[in-house]
């Protein structure tokens, strides 16, 4: 009996070893720069190592961030490891990942915090170990960050406003659907659009929250159509709400220009089919790429801008195929 048990334990250990071994090799393949093994990597401790920790590695969005980060690593000749928990709700797991990378004494961290205020104690720990932290995608109220590298939401909102103004001209009636009240990302997007629309003489008749959901976007739009049947254009501050609004508009057999935000795969598909008019696409590839660039600069002690805009662009029927091909190429499909 004892012998059997011992055999099993040894077997389990061997299994763990094998797993860790193949895990290690996966880790290497996910390093953009050098093709070194874990051991060599620690020997060459002068080489810059950047850990990129995202909210989760379960969507195209984060895979694009990952691809950008790795390409930056390859270009700059630094080691880049991209990690993320299994789901965006795993806040404590993400914090553990940050802590473990600090233990590994990486040269710099680039983090997209799932819950910004919760990650601050971990950032403080990085600072105590003199590891610079760049925030990517999502900002956190932490003074000592090197930089925030992410979408310029205000500029993106202005682009949406300009697009609607160009398409519809003076006096057109516009409705805006936005994410949850008090969410700064959606404040910026909505405010950017409102500023341009007003300056160009369009009429923003209503701004309503639809909590970034497709279902809610649809019901809010149904109500808006009841109250303002003469609406000519809609700007939704994310694609989910835009696609929901579109359904309401289709059901009412109206012809209204709808502009979303994000450039999500669903939205691109809808644009290609001629349903959604446009989407203000974020650039997750740039978020990863420029995030690593900023982290490397910080690791070398060079100065980095406090805010880096990763750019947005208007996707319409004219350029949607190009954008889709481009994303597919980055994702390797």
């Amino acid at each position, binding site marked *: 009996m004892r012998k059997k*048990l011992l055999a099993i*334990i040894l077997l389990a250990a061997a299994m763990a070893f094998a*797993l860790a071994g193949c895990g290690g090799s996966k880790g290497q393949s996910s390093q953009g720069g050098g093709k070194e093994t874990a051991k060599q990597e620690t020997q060459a401790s002068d080489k810059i190592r950047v850990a990129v920790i995202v909210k989760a590695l379960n969507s195209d969005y984060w895979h694009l961030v990952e691809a950008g980060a790795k390409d930056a690593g390859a270009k700059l000749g630094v080691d880049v490891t991209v990690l993320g928990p299994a789901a965006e709700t795993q806040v404590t797991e993400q914090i553990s990942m940050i802590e*473990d990378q600090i233990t590994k004494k990486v040269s710099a961290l680039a983090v997209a915090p799932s819950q910004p*205020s919760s990650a601050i*104690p971990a950032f403080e720990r990085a600072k105590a170990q003199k590891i610079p932290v760049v925030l990517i995608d999502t900002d956190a109220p932490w003074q000592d960050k090197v930089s925030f590298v992410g979408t310029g939401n205000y500029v993106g909102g202005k682009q949406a406003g300009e697009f609607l103004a160009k398409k519809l001209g003076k006096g057109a009636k516009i409705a805006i659907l936005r994410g949850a009240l008090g969410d700064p990302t959606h404040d910026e997007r909505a405010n950017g659009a409102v500023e341009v629309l007003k300056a160009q003489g369009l009429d923003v008749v209503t701004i309503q929250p639809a909590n970034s959901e497709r279902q809610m976007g649809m019901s809010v739009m149904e109500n808006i159509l009841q109250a303002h049947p003469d609406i000519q254009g809609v700007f939704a501050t994310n694609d989910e709400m835009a696609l929901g609004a579109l359904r309401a508009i289709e059901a009412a057999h109206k012809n209204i220009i709808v502009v979303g935000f994000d450039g999500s795969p669903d939205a691109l598909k809808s644009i290609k089919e001629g349903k959604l008019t446009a989407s203000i696409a974020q650039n997750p590839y740039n978020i990863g790429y420029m995030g690593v660039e900023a982290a490397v600069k910080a690791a070398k002690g060079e100065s980095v801008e406090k805010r880096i805009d990763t750019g947005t662009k208007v996707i319409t029927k004219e350029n949607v195929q190009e954008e889709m091909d481009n994303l597919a190429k980055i994702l390797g499909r």
Partner: protein
Amino acid sequence: MLKTVSEKAVKEPDIQAEGKINWKDLLYSLGALLGLILLSAVLTVLSPDFLTLNNLMNIARQSAINSLISVGMLLTILTAGIDLSVGSVLALSTVVMAILIIKLHVSPFIGVLAGLCLGAFLGFMNGILLTKLHLPHPFISTLGTMNIARGLALIVTGATPISGFPFSVQFLGAAFWGPIPVSFMLVLVVFIIFHLFLTRTTTGRYIYAVGGNPEAARLSGVPVERVLVIVYTLSGFMAAVAGLVLIGRVNAAYPLAGLGYELDAIAAVIIGGASFFGGVGTVWGTLVGALIMAVLRNGLNLLGVSADLQTVAIGAVIIGAVYIDVLRQRAINKGRR
């Protein structure tokens, strides 16, 4: 259910004969410990950052929440039950603490106490559903509570996180005593208390008896229903305690906290050598089980292994550990024939 009862009957003498058989239990919890040591040795070789004071303290902190939930889960599994609601109970009790302390400016002490009582109450309800409403299996009662508590947590917070606790509330999860995290010291204290409770008190012995053979326990005068209610109440209470540590760790309470934690806790208990059929298991085995999971995650993080593969590794460890349990059952049955 009937089948498990009859299996229990086979095993029962094994639990009651103390002195002689205990070495076997010791060996099995030692089995998990040996696994932990081997795993650590392998990781020490693979990653130079693994065996450092800093990292060991990280592991101590990262394991604390799961350890605290697991010790409550151990009690339910000892009675051949299960508590699926712990993750949701953790979430609801922490968001209630947050609302009381941050939004309503109740004194932190009262707010925390209320949250802990809520956790215990939800556990108590699990016990009542099982014993008084005679729901057929704790899987069902706690599955119900799991959904109710999660839904309530989402409703009362409007699905948004609440942050900004005073440090007194964060103390258990955030403070250090020298290099040692307070959360891990709490784990040790709690585990010592539960060890004494299970081995030195009548109620503790009853818990093993109920898991070993509920019918025999009832006939020999064990208040089975009361024991079950106590067990689920303690499980809910420990989930709320773990929630308090989580608050300190992330300085926030959020309605989706603890999602899937029940599965981590079950895994820790099972890896730690407790039997799913009840009656067998120790707090120290459970602690080792929780540490194995934390070491595995930490080590794979250090090696830069993706979260997906970590999940696979933990799954493999669970199957391996339960296979040991199966072999043990077989050996015991063979020994009796």
